[in-house]
């Protein structure tokens, strides 16, 4: 009995000790690996989602002419495409006969404008009456303008037929570089290559007969209902693709595929894989992943409303994975992550989780915010790490979010930074910066919103958004998102949106902690002094910051609004003070610097623990070393150099009381 009690004393004692340092140890174990991997990802995945005709639309909408003369371009919205298409991978040619049905958006509309990527041969009514048309260029992109026989008014229906043909320029260079298609050995294509595209965003179904060479399987946003010999060419087969659910965008891929599918009642999940043993082995696991991920997102974001979800393996020249509505494109090298060649299976799952999140953002929940790609990419990346954390690896989110915040802090100079929602976000020449800001910072800020308003309110607001706009001709933007979140939160969220979404930078908190004489009741007290700055001039961060006071009795967390540049708090605490953690749950992107030089863990004293961390991190470099610790990088130059180490060694044994801070 006695021995048992003693054992408990020891165990408890060990627990306090380990707990006191736990966060530091955990932080460093995988964080550097994650930083390095994410940095590589940022460098590799250039033009990640800056591809596709939708991106061109976002780009065009930003242009002065469209902003000033929108009505003459935002003439209509297509509601249905139908017709015949022949794609010949050998000659890289496409021929299309497309009927467009839609509705007029503006009063007294006498012409319709379309973005096109093939030569337009003729335009006529369904009755065969020829219509006049012209091709002009808008900021480097060809615009088809079709004259209507008589002016139409808002809400009127229209129908016309367009014949197109030619060899599309897959790497289209207009305002910026985009990739829309590839022909060999796997054919993949943004269907807007042959479907003339309204500039106001189409929201359309489709019924297409697509002919491709015999033996190739076709994957598409719609469902392939049947395959028959092609009337146009005996070496081709005609695939009847029916998409009876409206979407903004659609795509296809075709190849010598194996196909597998599993039920996902009432829908199904399907997978098109190239004929090799690695892909064959992976297929069952990937299908189960897809199903699990979809089900998880349904739980937090609302129902999956497309009738199926499929993924197709494509070639690496795509340069990125794509989350088209109801169809993912996954390049070979990404598809095979974790198959034994390289990478871990979890990396592949995270990739699928990102792409599948696009089914909600923006495929079902459509954004019409031309300045805010982060609403898709930041949310998809957040969704991925949130899924991984909940379903695959506890702690994944914290580590990923911290690595993203650090990458943003260290690798995005203020001169290249841009607000998440801003016109500048559409003109980012450095792909890595784009990834670090729109994807990574976007994910961190999404997580910030979740942490601040709480899971229930956050996911509740997104479900409400989904209910209101998914699969409807409804759209949201940054402003509307804020409104949904504020309604759930019950208060303004300007304190997050203004500095983190509409501005750049992050706060820098210089923190000092000093032990005070105990209270009359014997309770210990500390004085916490905060000096607040901003990494960039002009951005003000008035934030509710949490402070975890760690004592030998446990942890007490206090949340205080830091709205002044100099602020001092005095807090009583149980037990004996050990150290302070600022923003322990990593809610905000920020930098914390100890006022007491060398006080790595903000304990108010520089001792052996500070020394261990400084010595271990010595020579570490952000993104390149396994041993970089940002909290030892006192001068924030990305390296733990002699200057940083000496701050600990020279001040060893000093306390903040002694230093008079």
């Amino acid at each position, binding site marked *: 009995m006695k021995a048992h009690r003693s054992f408990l004393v020891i165990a408890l004692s060990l627990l306090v000790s380990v707990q006191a340092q736990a966060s530091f140890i955990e932080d460093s174990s995988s964080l550097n690996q994650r930083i390095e991997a994410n940095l590589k990802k940022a460098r590799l995945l250039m033009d990640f989602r800056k591809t596709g005709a939708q991106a061109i639309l976002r780009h065009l909408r930003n242009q002065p002419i469209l902003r000033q003369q929108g009505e003459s371009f935002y003439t209509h919205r297509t509601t249905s495409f139908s017709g015949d298409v022949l794609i010949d991978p050998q000659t890289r040619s496409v021929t299309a006969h497309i009927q467009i049905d839609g509705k007029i958006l503006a009063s007294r509309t006498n012409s319709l404008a379309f973005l096109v990527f093939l030569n337009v041969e003729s335009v006529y009514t369904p009755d065969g009456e020829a219509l006049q048309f012209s091709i002009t260029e808008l900021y480097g992109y060809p615009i088809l303008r079709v004259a209507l026989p008589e002016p139409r008014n808002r809400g009127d229906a229209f129908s016309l037929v367009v014949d197109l043909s030619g060899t599309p320029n897959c790497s289209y260079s207009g305002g910026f570089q985009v990739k829309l298609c590839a022909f060999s050995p796997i054919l993949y294509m943004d269907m807007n290559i042959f479907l003339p595209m309204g500039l106001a965003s189409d929201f359309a179904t489709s019924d297409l007969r697509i002919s491709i060479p015999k033996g190739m399987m076709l994957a598409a946003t719609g469902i392939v209902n049947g395959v028959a010999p092609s009337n146009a060419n005996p070496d081709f087969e005609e695939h009847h693709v029916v998409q009876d659910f409206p979407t903004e965008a659609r795509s296809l891929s075709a190849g010598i595929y194996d196909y597998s599918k599993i039920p996902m009642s009432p829908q199904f999940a399907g997978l098109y894989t190239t004929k090799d043993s690695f892909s064959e082995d992976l297929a069952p696991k990937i299908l189960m992943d897809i199903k699990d991920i979809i089900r998880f997102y349904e739980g937090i974001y609302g129902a999956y409303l497309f009738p199926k979800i499929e993924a197709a393996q494509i070639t690496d020249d795509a340069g990125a994975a794509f989350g088209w509505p109801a169809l993912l494109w996954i390049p070979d090298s990404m598809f095979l992550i974790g198959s034994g060649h390289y990478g871990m299976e979890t990396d592949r799952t995270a990739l699928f989780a990102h792409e599948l999140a696009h089914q909600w953002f923006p495929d079902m929940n459509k954004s019409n915010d031309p300045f805010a790609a982060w609403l898709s990419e930041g949310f998809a990346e957040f969704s991925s790490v949130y899924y991984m954390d909940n379903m695959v690896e506890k702690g994944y989110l914290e580590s990923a979010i911290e690595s993203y915040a650090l990458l943003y802090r260290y690798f995005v100079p203020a001169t290249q930074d841009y607000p998440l929602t801003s016109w500048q976000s559409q003109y980012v020449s450095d792909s890595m910066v784009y990834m670090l800001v729109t994807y990574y910072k976007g994910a961190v800020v999404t997580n910030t919103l979740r942490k601040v308003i709480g899971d229930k309110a956050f996911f509740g607001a997104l479900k409400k958004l989904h209910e209101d706009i998914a699969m409807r001709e409804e759209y949201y933007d940054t402003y509307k998102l804020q409104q949904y979140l504020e309604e759930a939160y019950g208060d303004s969220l300007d304190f997050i949106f203004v500095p983190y979404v509409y501005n750049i930078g992050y706060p820098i908190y210089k923190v000092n902690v000093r032990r005070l004489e105990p209270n009359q009741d014997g309770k210990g007290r500390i004085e916490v002094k905060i000096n607040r700055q901003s990494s960039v001039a002009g951005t003000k961060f008035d934030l509710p910051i949490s402070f975890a006071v760690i004592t030998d009795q446990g942890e007490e967390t206090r949340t205080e609004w830091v709205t002044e540049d100099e602020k001092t708090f005095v807090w009583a605490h149980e037990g004996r003070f050990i150290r302070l953690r600022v923003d322990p749950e990593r809610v905000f992107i920020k930098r914390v610097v100890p006022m007491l030089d060398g006080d790595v863990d903000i304990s108010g004293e520089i001792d*052996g623990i500070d020394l261990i961390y400084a010595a271990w991190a010595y020579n570490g470099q952000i993104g390149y070393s396994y041993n970089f610790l940002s909290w030892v990088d006192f001068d924030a130059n990305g390296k733990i150099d002699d200057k940083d180490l000496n701050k600990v060694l020279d001040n*060893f044994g000093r306390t903040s009381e002694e230093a008079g801070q």
Partner: protein
Amino acid sequence: MRKARTLSLVGLLVLISSCDAGKNESLDVANDIGAQREVLSESQVSNDDRAYEVSIDRYEVDSIYTDIFSEDEDAVDSNSLPQISGGSVPYYPSPSFRFEQDAALDGNKVILDVVAKDLGEVFGIALRIEWDPSLLELESVNLQQVFEQDGIYKAKEIRPGSLAIGIAHNASYKKHEISGDVVVAKMTLKLLKSGEVSITYYEPRCLVVTRRLEPVKPVYIPYQLRALVR
């Protein structure tokens, strides 16, 4: 009964300590990266030449289940009292830190070894050693060269009665295997007045890590000192 046993131990400890004196060559340095060695302790010794008679009582541990943290002797039943005579071999758990009396008593001074046992592969060691400063005063602390390779060695009394020790390799890829008993530091303490004092490791500020920064979790065994100053 207990007192008699204690007194008989004093002579034995003095004898053993005399034999051990000078056995461990003290480093007495802070070996920074590329820096010169420096004296570590900043504590001062008063030149008080009053005569002291000291009796030392040492609690040794049979197992980690004994009441090593109990400071209330009445609460300890006689069966679990540490055995300190009769040729019993003390048992210390692995990995662990403890104190051992090293040198012979020298007037009012007590020299304690900080002993690490079976820590395994180690990158760095942070220790916080504490005592009642009204009873004891730190005169000096000599850090021992724990690592074969160059390392960083630092020690300082952060507050009266609270000594911080930091020992680490000077590059994250280095490690050193600590097996068996290894003296990490030698502390010379001056007894100020009679009384019973615990010399403890303050665990929340102690940390031992591998080169992967994984924590090693030693048992920290305190030391009980009884001083009678005439």
